[in-house]
């Protein structure tokens, strides 16, 4: 995977998806690659995956790696908002609604 490549997040980010997501992100960070995620396909998201994402961003920052979460779908942006994690994930408050509305 080339560094600037963007990984597409799966549609369902429920609790069972948290473990594979963590493994994938951890692999990428441990290889020293920056993390660029595309959230445009996400239709369901739970807290477990949001935690993994927030932890991944902190972990990337710890290694001086870039972490971006781009094009969050409305559902994703909404849940990030509900969980109060906009700052922690660096997602603009109006990200999802602006794009999808």
């Amino acid at each position, binding site marked *: 995977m080339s560094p600037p490549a963007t990984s597409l997040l799966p549609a369902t980010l429920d*609790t069972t998806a948290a473990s594979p997501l963590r493994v994938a992100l951890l692999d990428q960070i441990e290889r020293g690659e920056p993390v660029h995620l595309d959230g445009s396909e996400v239709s369901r998201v739970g807290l477990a995956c*949001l*935690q993994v994402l927030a*932890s991944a961003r902190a972990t990337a920052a710890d290694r001086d790696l870039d972490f971006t979460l781009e094009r969050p779908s409305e559902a994703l942006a*909404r849940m990030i908002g509900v969980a109060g994690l906009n*700052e922690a994930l660096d997602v603009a408050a*109006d990200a999802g*609604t602006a794009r999808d509305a």
Partner: protein
Amino acid sequence: MNLDEIQLIFFQECDEGLASMEASFGAVRQGHYDNETINTIFRAVHSIKGGAGAFGHERLQAFAHEYETLLDLVRNGALTLTPDLLGTIVSAFDMLADHVTAARDGGEPPADAAMLARLVDAATPDSAGGAPAPAAEAEPEFAPVAFGGDDFDDLFAMCEAPAPAPAGGDWQVTFIPGSDALENGGDPLLLLRELAMLDATVTSVDLSALPLLNQLHPERCYLGWTATVPAAVAEEDIRAIFEFMGTCDLRIEKAGGAPANDDLPFDLPLPVLDAELGAPTPIPPVASPAPPPVPAAPPVAAEAAAPRAAVTPPAQTIRVDLDKLDRLVNLVGELVITQAMLAQRLSEHAMAGISELTDLDHLTRELQESTMAIRAQPMKTVFSRVPRIIRELEVETGKRVRLDIVGEMTEVDKTVVERIGEPLTHLIRNAVDHGLETPAERLAAGKPEEGVVTLSAAHHSGRIVITVADDGRGIDRKRVRAKAIERGIIAPDALLSDEETDNLIFAPGFSTAATVSNISGRGVGMDVVRKNVQALGGRIGITSHLGSGSSFALSLPLTLAVLDGMIVTVGDQTFVIPLGHIVESLRPDQDGVKVLGPNAALLDVRGSYVPVHYVADQLGIEGAETDPSQAVLIVVESDVGQAILMVDTIQDQRQVVVKSLEANYAAIPGLAGATILGDGRVALILDVDALISRWRRDRVTAAPLGIAA
């Protein structure tokens, strides 16, 4: 406990909530209500809404939300409870019940658009006839548009809005789900979403416990949140959201009312998060520097309880799997049998009088009664469904009905409660459809326009008697008789007593309704009612007065697991006759019995002739007494009148544990079950009603006597 189980509890609580609402509506309709009554209704809807949100039943939640909005306006006095408004509220209640059912069974939610529009309409002061709006300030809070279905835009915007400084008296909600919050299948996000619907603002999220990715357990919850909820929201409403979250650290505090509160690290807004992320050195959890929680709950609770000291405190309960209970009941049954066997064995050795045996007898009996009491449920669970049936019937028939319920706390065994619902529904439908007249007819008859259906339950000598009475037109015996002759149920010249005429309405295929309605009148109802009641070991009786109403009384055993019976012998067999049927037992004089034929005899019981049935002959038992004057005659009451069973001897009268033949062997017509006697032998329990009516039928076909005697 997994999510399904928690959800199950939620639905059980929904049912309880709906039942308590129904009870409150009853009080409201009779004019006995105060703020607490309305509050009870409001709270029930609110917890249904909360649970629905937590389990993702969005349609139910959306409906409950609108409903709650309207109820809140009534609660705070913004709307006056007019009969029209009450009508809307009660109709919406029925739809809420449908929504709950749909959510539970995974069915299609009811079409609620019209009802939602009605609710919104009713909640708008101008359209709600003459309701002043002194509490208009409460309106924006619950404005129905704030939340439309699953459109979360407003909600989202609300979350994103810069955290307003908590105004004086706003609630500070600190919420740290346990680390296992996700493992249980729950998701704290749903609760946050609920919270946001109360206009809450998440002011900070505690990320301090969130480890780096390599140490992160993906299904463990590490976060905690602090949110501000407007002061107008009641604390119990906030708590209700978290009700289904087992292990969570929840603090709900009133912000001191001073802006100084902003300085607390407790309320530090989001920038602190970035700092944490940059250098994730664990800092103490945000919540810990907060001042010790003000014990806000007790005073509030006391306040809520104060206005109504008379309210009975909720009894403490636990929910137990019914299977476990049944196993316990069964074991106790076995114990009772073993105790009886022990007593018998000891008596064989002339040791029946030892005091330990008496003690054991008392203990087992008490144990048995206590176990049965565990299974007992108040009739309320059945009765609470009736008001809705009445409401639907009112709409279908155009009649006006008032329902009076008496004795709803009367307790009876769960199996009886479960199986009485259907016959009872039939009887209620019958009372409204056939019993009550139309309003015009009632007025013409000089009765109030509104008909009264009385539903009552009471304990009566070891049985429960449930009565459905109406003040309608009563049974027209001439019409019943004419109909029965027309349908070929009785011979045109049959001589029937009033009671027997009334009982004809239970005959299969009988119906007096001029037109077949979709409510009743197909002539199956009453027949089925009697079958169902008999299957429960019960009897049904009618009292009716032409022009002033009828009353149907169901008499049922309190439990189906034990039975008071008379142990009798016939030849070499032992039988149990249920005591409920026995009127008396006697040994006749030489000439008391009039023998009419080889196996037909009548006994003169104080002036009325009662047919004698030779149990031995009819059950094919050999070696039994054939001379009535040497036998014992037991007078029994059955559906088709009195009859006499001729047996050899009476052994004992005692309580026996009923063992189901159906479960252990196969159902046998004429036998209600079996029991194990003290000597270890099996004794069959006679189903008196079934046997007598079969013998009657056989005899009628043999020699068409009609129903005489």
